């Protein structure tokens, strides 16, 4: 006999839990499934990953840096990949986290730019628009419990205005003059903050490059999943 009234009338799996003895959280879900549903997988953990991305605002624009490594767990698998991607003519995005999800995002943004171009309405997508679009997508995926496992920095200059913002696998957004994802947030951010905060309108390009180089060096010392090959993009 099933002693739990909340089980009466509900689909029951006699093979696994005939008498409803499992706690509610562990009760097998016995609703009928279709064959297609069985094939759907949700991202549970990132597999091929990129590590930190750093970005700062300086006098003439925004500078971003990331190394060229995609790790497969503790294996340094792909040592020459691009984690910084220009989008349209005003923006660059850099992503850490799962690289397959990043490739999907790249394809999505390519489609977006093509649509915008073919609309021919005199407007172009700037960094603020790209960032907003990504934030909506990331949050929507998180709400469906199937996140794109990335931490993305969006930076660029449009109409003379600098833009730098962060989007997360949870849809968290954040904007500041210095940003870092992953290990960079713990190790590089203190260095970036002391070097840049207050001086965003004074730093020249060479100084900004030096700051990012120094931070990437320290990250190579202390991040076990980093590489000494780095790419830097300036806007």
């Amino acid at each position, binding site marked *: 006999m099933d002693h739990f009234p909340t089980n009466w009338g509900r689909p029951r799996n006699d093979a696994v839990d005939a008498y409803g003895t499992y706690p509610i959280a562990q009760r097998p879900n016995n609703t009928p499934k279709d064959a297609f549903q069985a094939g759907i997988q949700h991202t549970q953990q990132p597999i091929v990953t990129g590590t930190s991305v750093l970005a700062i605002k300086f006098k003439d624009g925004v500078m971003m840096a990331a190394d060229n490594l995609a790790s497969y767990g503790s294996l340094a698998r792909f040592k020459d990949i691009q984690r910084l991607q220009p989008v349209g003519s005003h923006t660059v995005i850099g992503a850490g986290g799962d690289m397959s999800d990043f490739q999907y995002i790249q394809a999505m943004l390519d489609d977006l730019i093509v649509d915008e171009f073919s609309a021919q309405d005199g407007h172009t997508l700037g960094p603020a628009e790209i960032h907003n679009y990504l934030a909506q997508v990331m949050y929507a995926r998180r709400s469906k419990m199937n996140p794109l496992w990335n931490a993305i920095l969006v930076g660029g200059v449009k109409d003379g205005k600098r833009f730098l913002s962060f989007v997360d696998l949870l849809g968290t957004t954040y904007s500041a003059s210095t940003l870092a994802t992953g290990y960079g947030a713990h*190790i590089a951010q203190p*260095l970036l903050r002391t070097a840049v905060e207050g001086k965003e309108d004074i730093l020249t390009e060479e100084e900004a490059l030096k700051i990012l180089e120094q931070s990437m060096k320290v990250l190579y010392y202390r991040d076990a999943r980093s590489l000494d090959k780095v790419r830097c993009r300036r806007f």
Partner: protein
Amino acid sequence: MASTFSSTGFNFSNELRNNFIADKGLHLPKATSTGTTIVGCLFKDGIVLGADTRATEGPIVADKNCEKIHYITENIRCCGAGTAADTEFTTALISSNMELHALSTGRQPRVVTAMTMLKQMLFRYQGHVGAALVLGGVDATGPHLFTIHPHGSTDKLPYVTMGSGSLAAMAVFESGWRANMERADALALVKAAISAGIFNDLGSGSNIDACIITASSTEMLRNVEMPNMRVQKERTYGFRRGTTAWKSESIRDLVIDEQVTHLVSEAMDTT
């Protein structure tokens, strides 16, 4: 009737029960290297140790100005991160043992002795004593700087950081440390490292303590920098007399009637 005898030291008899419960799904909370930034740095003449001064109880600041640089001997000091009671009592115990050892050997105590005592004790407790220490000092063999983890592993390095703010502090060290620095440069570097921890880590805060140990002297710089002073309040919040009106007043003496009776006729005999 259950025996009332309890042996000294830790009692591990609940381990079986804890493992059983953990298998069912309820895990023990992990003791972590909690809110602190402590650093140590080797320079030309000796060692500079640094620490912040915030003690936290979960998300609450328990002590805004605690001392994390503990005394081991005259020429050896130890910064402690992790459970405050563990660091406090462990360093006190090793300090007294070092004093006895020095008296027994007749020599100035050495840093490696303190390190060995600490690591052997921490390993014996298998990590349950949550003390993550930065031990530094100058002895007859020169300046030495060690880091000791709660499970008993040690590292001998020219610059070390421990605690939740260790990544921020280590970033500063990795950018700025050189061999054979001058005293002023070393102190500035340590202050910068602790500041990085204070301003970028939520577990660290308040003021900076430093301790400079050389062959000739040990200088304890308590609150060498106070970057988080409370601002003076803009107003005074006192109330002037008469703010609260009163309707009636009644004053009574607590002493109603006082009588002094001498119980002893002569004075006290104080011979």
